[in-house]
């Protein structure tokens, strides 16, 4: 059984480069160019509509929460506000980092900055980490965004439902960057010319957080932190729930997104919060397609993809036992069946990984 080294500077990182797993050419389902061009086409309308709904809801919910504070009756409003702050902002961060949410670039950039702040992800550092995630999806030692490492650390996964690891790490890294330093792991994927931007944003955020904390002290109340900062913790659960399903329990070190990514049918509210990233195989195969066209992309390629999970609960029922088995056997993973209409997996290409698939 191989022990995995997830460091960007470790032995697996070196091996991925040497064996050609890094920056490899990935499998894509064939789609006619004309159809693909249509699917990739940008549009401001859907994201403007969704952003008005999102920010309007946040203002209303936080306003009611403040009005009812400190009554227990404010709690449901804070919980709903928290999900929009600590989870919906995750998908906005993601889509805007691709530049696909809006047609107009400045709109993408503004929402990207706001969402990055809410999620405590430095917008410059994480732009580059997500670029690497798309180049080397779930390649050990290369992908800095592997949410579930093997063997899985269940305490960490569960703590993250309350943001306790990721948000804490984000704030620690913010303070680190604000001192004028970029971590060596960050430096492995952020070009030198971009690194000063990481530091500048971290310093701006420190000023914002210091102001909110100062206001909380002045008021003698945590109320300001209920609006800014704490929702990253008490509202994180939804983005962690959906995020773990993206790749959890599936293959690593393969170059076919059908093997390492999961598409899950979800309810409309979760899809609004998640901005359709439940179509995750499709997103990784064709990251240029905006979130609002992913259902159409799904229809166009589903003949070539494993059957989607039917719900969040059904996907967890599939994933969680697989993670438990990975505690004892790091090499265990779920190999999902393809429909008869699909092009088969390249068994020769993925021999090392596929040799230990679940039966």
């Amino acid at each position, binding site marked *: 059984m191989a022990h995995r080294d997830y460091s960007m500077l470790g032995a697996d990182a070196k091996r991925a480069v040497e064996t050609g797993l890094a*920056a490899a050419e990935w499998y894509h389902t064939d789609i006619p160019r004309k159809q693909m061009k249509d699917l990739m086409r940008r549009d401001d309308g859907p994201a403007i509509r969704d952003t008005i709904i999102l920010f309007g809801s946040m203002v209303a919910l936080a306003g009611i929460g403040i009005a009812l504070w400190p009554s227990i009756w404010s709690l449901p409003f804070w919980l709903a506000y928290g999900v929009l702050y600590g989870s919906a902002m995750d998908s906005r961060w993601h889509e805007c980092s691709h*530049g*696909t949410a809006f*047609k107009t670039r400045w709109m993408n950039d503004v929402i990207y900055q706001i969402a990055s702040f809410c999620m405590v992800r430095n917008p410059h550092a994480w*732009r580059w980490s997500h*670029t690497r995630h*798309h*180049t080397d999806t779930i390649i050990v030692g290369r992908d800095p965004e592997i949410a579930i490492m093997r063997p899985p650390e269940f305490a960490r996964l569960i703590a993250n439902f309350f943001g306790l690891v990721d948000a804490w790490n984000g704030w620690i890294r913010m303070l680190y960057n604000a001192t004028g330093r970029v971590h060596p792991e960050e430096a492995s994927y952020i070009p030198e010319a971009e690194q000063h931007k990481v530091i500048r944003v971290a310093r701006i955020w420190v000023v914002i957080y210091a102001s909110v904390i100062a206001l909380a002290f002045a008021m003698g109340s945590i109320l300001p932190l209920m609006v800014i900062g704490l929702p990253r913790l008490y509202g994180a659960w939804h983005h962690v729930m959906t995020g773990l399903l993206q790749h959890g329990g599936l293959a690593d070190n393969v170059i076919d997104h059908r093997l390492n990514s999961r598409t899950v049918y979800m309810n409309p509210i979760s899809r609004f919060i998640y901005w359709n990233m439940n179509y995750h195989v499709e997103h990784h195969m064709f*990251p*240029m397609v905006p979130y609002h066209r992913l259902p159409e992309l799904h229809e166009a390629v589903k003949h070539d993809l494993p059957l989607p999970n039917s719900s969040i609960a059904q996907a967890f029922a599939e994933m969680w036992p697989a993670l438990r088995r990975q505690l004892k056997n790091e090499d265990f993973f779920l190999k999902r069946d393809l429909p008869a209409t699909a092009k088969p997996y390249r068994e020769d290409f993925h021999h090392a990984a596929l040799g230990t698939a679940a039966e």
Partner: protein
Amino acid sequence: MPWIDACATDDIETEDLIRFDHDGRTFAIYRSPDDEFFCTDGLCTHEQVHLADGLVMDYEIECPKHNATFDYRTGEAKRAPACVNLNTYPVRTEGGRVLIEV
């Protein structure tokens, strides 16, 4: 430098591009919204992905892998993760053909 007959003008839709391989090199040939033709290197300067699978919007080409964008008239990198400009090449049309000087 020699002029190379690359394709017919009708081979490229308006506001689109095609891939053109020649002499071991790969190029991207564009047709702008105003029916002008341009030519750049065919691979993104970020991670060597073929731009021909990308999206042309006005005068920009967006890489299909990481959404880096370039102005295909000048080759200028406009959006990260691309930091290095594309090389551009002269183009002319003649008798319904697109010729590039490479």
